[in-house]
């Protein structure tokens, strides 16, 4: 039981990231490898905002010491902004290029972001103060960390909200139309470029939230933290049928539960 709840919490994180991969894939037909790095930047954005003192590029910088909720918003904004920027600068000019060029660019963007993060925050793990939520709960005889419930709850709520946006709002309809047929959508008056931008921003926000949850749960942030979760989320997205939101999320949950002893994973290997 304990294992399952642990797994579900980790799975929720993978699920969020998987949804981001899945939606962007649906609209653009490409795997945006950089989501792993947006995930990382989201975590760092929130981290820097909460701290009183941060070491950036070797210099000590006075931090904002903002309350947690505001820090989360900032992490989210940072992630979305980066997502918007890379779509605008790196991907949009390649809209009609072969899929291979887009994939290679995506990998390069991901490497570049990782290098930038290593420069800013160093190669080592940066500890994150985990929120004090009180003692573990006993559910059905299992000790469950409260943070796991929060993570799972947030992941489910965010995914539901995102699904509702896609399903019921005009922009959601435009996204679905673009995913189905770009040219037809354009002919129907959908601003395809704007829709793709929006999708990227939404996806990046999801990835950033996932990153924030991850850093809160494991108590660290690191420049390389995004790689393994991104790989797993990709697998989850494929598992759930790439392009489908509920499929991707459930895929993430399944992967989280089936991963061996997620609580014992201290950190992803640093040598990459």
């Amino acid at each position, binding site marked *: 039981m304990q294992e399952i709840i642990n797994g579900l919490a980790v799975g929720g994180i993978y699920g969020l990231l998987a949804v981001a991969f899945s939606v962007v894939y649906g609209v653009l037909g490409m795997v945006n490898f950089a989501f792993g790095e947006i995930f990382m930047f989201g975590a760092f954005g929130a981290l820097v905002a909460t701290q009183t003192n941060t070491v950036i590029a070797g210099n000590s910088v006075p931090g904002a010491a903002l309350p947690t909720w505001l820090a989360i918003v900032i992490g989210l904004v940072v992630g979305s902004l980066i997502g918007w920027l890379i779509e605008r600068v790196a991907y949009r000019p390649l809209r009609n290029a072969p899929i291979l060029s887009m994939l290679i660019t995506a990998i390069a963007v991901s490497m570049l972001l990782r290098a930038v993060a290593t420069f800013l925050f160093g190669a080592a793990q940066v500890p994150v103060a985990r929120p004090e939520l009180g003692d573990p709960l006993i559910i059905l005889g299992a000790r469950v960390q409260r943070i796991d419930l929060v993570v799972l709850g947030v992941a489910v709520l965010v995914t539901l909200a995102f699904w509702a946006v896609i399903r019921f709002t005009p922009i959601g309809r435009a996204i679905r139309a673009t995913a189905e047929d770009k040219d037809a959508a354009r002919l129907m008056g959908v601003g395809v470029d704007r829709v793709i931008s929006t999708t990227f921003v939404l996806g990046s926000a999801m990835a950033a939230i996932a990153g924030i949850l991850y850093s809160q749960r494991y108590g660290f942030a690191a420049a390389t933290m995004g790689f393994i979760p991104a790989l797993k989320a990709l697998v989850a997205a*494929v598992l759930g049928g790439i392009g489908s939101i509920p499929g991707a999320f459930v895929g993430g949950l399944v992967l989280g539960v089936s991963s061996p002893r997620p609580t014992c994973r201290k950190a992803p290997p640093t040598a990459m």
Partner: protein
Amino acid sequence: MSNTHTTPIVILKPELGMKRWIWPGIFLILGLIAPFILPGDKWIRVAALSLVYVALASGLNILVGLTGLLDLGFIAFFIVGAYTTAIFTVRSFGPVLEANPAALMWVLPISVVAAIVLAGIAGTIIGYPTLRARGDYLAIMTLAFGEIVRIVSINWTDFTGGAVGIRNIPPLSISSGMVPPTVTYFVLFGIVVILLVALASLIASPVGRAWVAIREDELVASSMGIRTRRYKLLAYVVGASTAGVIGVFFAHMNQFVNPDSFTLEDNFIVLSLVILGGAGTFWGPITGAVLWIFFQAVAKDIPLIQSHPEFRTGFLALIVIVLMLLRPGGIVSKRLELTRARGGALPPQGEVQPFAGAAPKATGEVVLAVDRLKQVFGGLTALESVTFQLRHGEILGLMGPNGAGKSTLLNAISGVTRATSGTIEADGERIEKLESSAVSTRGIARTFQTVRLFWDMTVLENLLVGGHTRLAGFLPKFLSPFPFVRRGERATVAEAEAVLSFVDVWEIRDRRASSLDAYQQRRVEIARALMTRPRVLLLDEPAAGLNESETRDLARLISRIREQHIDVILIEHDMDLLMGVSDRIVVLDHGVIIADGPPNEIRKNPAVLEAYLGSDAK
């Protein structure tokens, strides 16, 4: 033969032999003098490392550049090679080598062969499931595979030494004691030259052309008789073996291997070097690798980069992004040489070689029989039940309003799509379940409604792809650079020139396909189809986009094709052309044949008139 062109045609001379040697010459000279002009041993080691990356980038270029398959786990094959030789020379033959260092002379070749075999197997393993996958799934699968190999190398402690790795790998020398880096360098240089010569020979052979054809247009490649899955797998095996071989020498150069010698980043670096230099060119990846390794060595001495090693990959990533936006072709834009044979200086007699697979037919005998063919796409029935026959010596016109199912019928015959039910027989053999490469080897060739040439190849290379099945054969023979193994290639070039002459485009044989005008493109496409030595030629709207005089010329060409004992099925909207050249016309409407007869009967057939003009047009 009349020439319909008003503009003067420049007859291109076959390329001068000397020009080909510029790049190899530069490479050889620089490579040979490098150890003598570089200051100090440290730089000779850098040069040796750059050779390792030259081989790696060239190997990956086979996959990414030529065949268009992304591999994000390429380093895995390199790891396999390095560990293979480490285990061989330290574990298996360690005592022998210790007693007698000269034994490396025969142990090393064994390692190399083992590395080729094992890396080749690894290539097959990763290549096989990815054959059906799209580009992005492929990327994920190869990425995961690379990780698996790395994790295995860390955790299979008994075999690989775990995180410590394997030490004391003998250096590349037959005597004991210190080995000067110059010796190591020259051994590596020799190996890399051999690898490059082998790869260049392979690229300028049917194999290389098949790879590029697959990248350019897989469907067309298949319709030329190329078994596309097999060639994709072959690309993996060749790329993997190249990486495996150089992995062996890398291990001996470093004298140790451990999992830290290869990181995930190396995959990206090698990929970047291919892109940086120019994917799909021969000298691009080589240039990229040399430039990068030397740049990296220089950068190591800059204090800022010393304190921030991440700048190096970050910088490379930035270059790749900028290149992708501004110059996706990379630094070197020298076109890939896909054949070494040169044509003659004079146009040959325009003749087409006959199909060799079966006995010649008597006029009127059935060549192709379609029986109750049905094709359903989802809820749409494109072909209801189509039955007709093509007899030897005739041109069969196929007409019908838009959406009648003409192209669907052609696709079903040529194996592009598989019919839902019904049979297709060619010369008594059932072909409805065959793939399009197999249909092609049964003597059925086709053209496409919109011209589909291999745009990046020359006209002659396009035709050589058409002659693929006659040239393909035992792979290792294409690895050798010697001309005598390529007699078949020269004969096929002569045949290609004859066919080009037959369709009257011989003069433009060295031009790139994308630079031709519409009618030239059409004729090259027909010529390429004729190069498969077909018995039956399927032409899908060949006159689309042609002007009147070109259409008249095309009609003459089609008649001349029949004179070469090739039977033609012609789909056409141009009624003058269709009625003019066809001996018999089959009219299709809504997936059903509504008329079948000679042109003058069809012209008066009330059902045909109704289909085309509506019921009131009497």
